[in-house]
């Protein structure tokens, strides 16, 4: 067990995976000499060479397309998309090609690639470099989707992604790269596809993922001071997603909120809350709440940016409102 950063954990996972499996290659913009826009692949080209750490031209569609072809023919490519906001450039390759090849071709041709990218707010990067677009991916059958929130998950989920036979979209959070935490390379936080309960509580369940986990945990701490015990569950994997843990917790507490940084309409939170509403209906004391980003493009002003996404305070106040009917100051 060592203390390291989220960024370093991902780099370590790539390093270890490339050492363990010579078919693993990296391809993307600035992944080689530059070391990755956020420094995740720093130094890997010196270790594994330009044949395996491939600096690609600014051609996002062809980067993903090439990764697909490499995956079809026996390599295990890790393509890097510098910002998830650029996913639009790759969407045909991702959604029509990678996601559907196995199915269209009757199971003959799998596409075991990992698309690493990062999203989210926190660096005042404005509307085209700050989005949370996981719902676009989650809506596409055939794509697995992972969003690690902890240092240990950053390592293990990436290692696990590199054992999958299907395309995995691995979305990091730009606001977490410098976060420190414990890494135990021998012990994952949980199994692939299974949410992990990060905090137990009796009064409500807060279901979230990626950076919002940390906002939710902070809110839960403060809620406890007010006598409200919130359970906090980290989804980790959005596809596959075994919802048994969620169902048990929501049935136990009868109150739940799903928190996402993404624009809330049509979001992961919408899907999760709908799913749980269906199967937990008889146990619900209150509607399952979605707490998400405002339905606006991300503004550049730090104040506006912060105000457009859920905060610890918003999660705290909303949870308190949900459980105790104590309306927050900003209500009405």
């Amino acid at each position: 067990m060592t203390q390291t950063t989220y960024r370093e954990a991902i780099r370590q996972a790539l390093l270890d995976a490339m050492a363990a499996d010579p078919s693993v290659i990296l391809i993307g913009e600035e992944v080689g000499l530059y070391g990755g826009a956020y420094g995740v692949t720093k130094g890997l080209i010196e270790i594994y060479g330009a044949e395996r750490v491939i600096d690609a031209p600014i051609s996002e569609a062809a980067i993903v397309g090439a990764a697909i072809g490499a995956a079809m023919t026996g390599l295990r490519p890790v393509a890097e998309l510098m910002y998830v906001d650029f996913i639009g450039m790759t969407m045909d390759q991702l959604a029509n090609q990678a996601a559907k090849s196995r199915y269209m071709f009757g199971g003959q041709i799998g596409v075991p690639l990992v698309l690493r990218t990062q999203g989210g707010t926190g660096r005042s990067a404005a509307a085209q470099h700050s989005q949370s677009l996981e719902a676009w991916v989650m809506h596409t059958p055939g794509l697995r989707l992972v969003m690690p929130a902890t240092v240990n998950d950053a390592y293990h989920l990436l290692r696990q992604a590199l054992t999958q036979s299907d395309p995995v979209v691995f979305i990091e959070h730009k606001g977490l790269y410098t976060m420190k935490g414990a890494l135990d390379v021998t012990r994952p936080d949980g199994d692939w596809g299974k949410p992990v309960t990060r905090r137990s509580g009796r009064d409500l369940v807060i279901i979230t993922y990626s950076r919002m986990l940390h906002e939710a945990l902070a809110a839960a701490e403060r809620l406890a001071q007010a006598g409200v015990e919130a359970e906090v569950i980290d989804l980790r994997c959005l596809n596959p997603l075994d919802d048994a843990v969620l169902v048990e917790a929501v049935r136990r507490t009868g109150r739940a909120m799903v928190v996402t940084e993404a624009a809330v309409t049509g979001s992961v939170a919408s899907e999760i809350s709908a799913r749980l509403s269906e199967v937990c209906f008889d146990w619900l004391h209150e509607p399952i709440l979605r707490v998400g980003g405002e339905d606006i493009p991300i503004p550049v002003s730090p104040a506006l940016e912060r105000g457009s996404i859920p905060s610890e305070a918003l999660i705290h106040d909303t949870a308190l409102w949900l459980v105790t009917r104590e309306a927050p100051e900003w209500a009405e």
Partner: protein
Amino acid sequence: MGRVILRLPRLGETMEQARVTDWLVATGAGFKRGDILLEVETDKTVVEVPAMTDGVLIAQLVSPGDMVDLDAPIAEIDAEGAGDVPAAKAEAVPIAPRQPESVPASPLASAEAGAPVAASPAARAAARRAGTDLTLIAGTGRRGRITAEDVAGQGPDADCQQGAQIALHRSGGAGLPIILLHGLYDDHRGWRDLPRRLAAAGHAVVSVDLPGPGDSVDGPASVDAAARAVADALTAELPEGAMRLIGHSLGAAVATKVAVLLAGRIDRLVLSAPLGLGARIDTDFLQGMLAADTTAALSRAMSRLDAGPLSQAILAQELARLKRLRPVHRAWAEALAQGGFQQIDITGDLARTSCDVRVIFGTGDRILDWQDIANLPARAAVHLVRGAGHLPHHAEPDLVVALATTTMGKGRADTETRSAP
């Protein structure tokens, strides 16, 4: 204001028509929301038809003695606000400029009008399991929604933890557990926000339903039997460690006997208007609660508690609950008092316990006599609340929280002084 026609609402499951017995509001007179407009007699009982909005009675369309069919017009009123529809079914008269909405003003109204009932999914599931009719329950939840707890208050609920025959409602954290025991005619919900406040102070809170009312299965109307059942349930729920008991009235008597049974584990008794210290008890209250057949009668009986005004919706909810539990309550009332004399004595039990005892009494209590505190053991700390009635813990909630949560030494120091009336 908008002119609407009131129609006779469904006031009972089998009711098809009713006889008008009396108009309580005269033509041309104004009325407030909650006022009784008229009384009608069904095949079972006399029922009041309340207004659910402020307004003015324009015309009485039926007279005392008339047999009126369900849904037939009974009055024309000028109602405050287009959206606030009276409990009695309303519809626009042709000249009305605005169509009143059919949104019910409260779950009660909606139930009576056959409109949708607002209830949480969990409440519906609980009602389905228990065979409870949701239309008979008034919701206490958000915007009047019927909660699972509301349903649980109507009968046995599989969701709460029952040790022996006792239902325990647990909340709060991992701190020193505080056990709440309610009084006669009450149930675990009668503590208002006390459980939440104790939980906020870090305590585990267990709110008990005594046998009969609340969630607990009916048991013998005996303080000793109830104390044994509660002690068993608490032992099962909390196998080890100290705990504190807060009891009100009958619940205070039960708490005292639990403290004897679980000697060594109970570190403090907080008794609010405890039963069993003296001789007299108010028969009018006991009998009035058993006899109340209308919300007005219930309101009169409950006024002796000096608990402040209660809304029509709460009164209706309480009436429904009390009517359902009437045989249980009658048995308890008979066990507790005969001819105005208490049949329970806890002074011997208090003398036998070694735990900290703190008593709170209202000097305006009309059910029990506050001067019975003279029979308390000398070590008991007493807090008298000037002018408060039989629910002193509602009059001084902060005091009760302090009495229950302060540490031993500090608490004792705080309670050395007795405030005189």
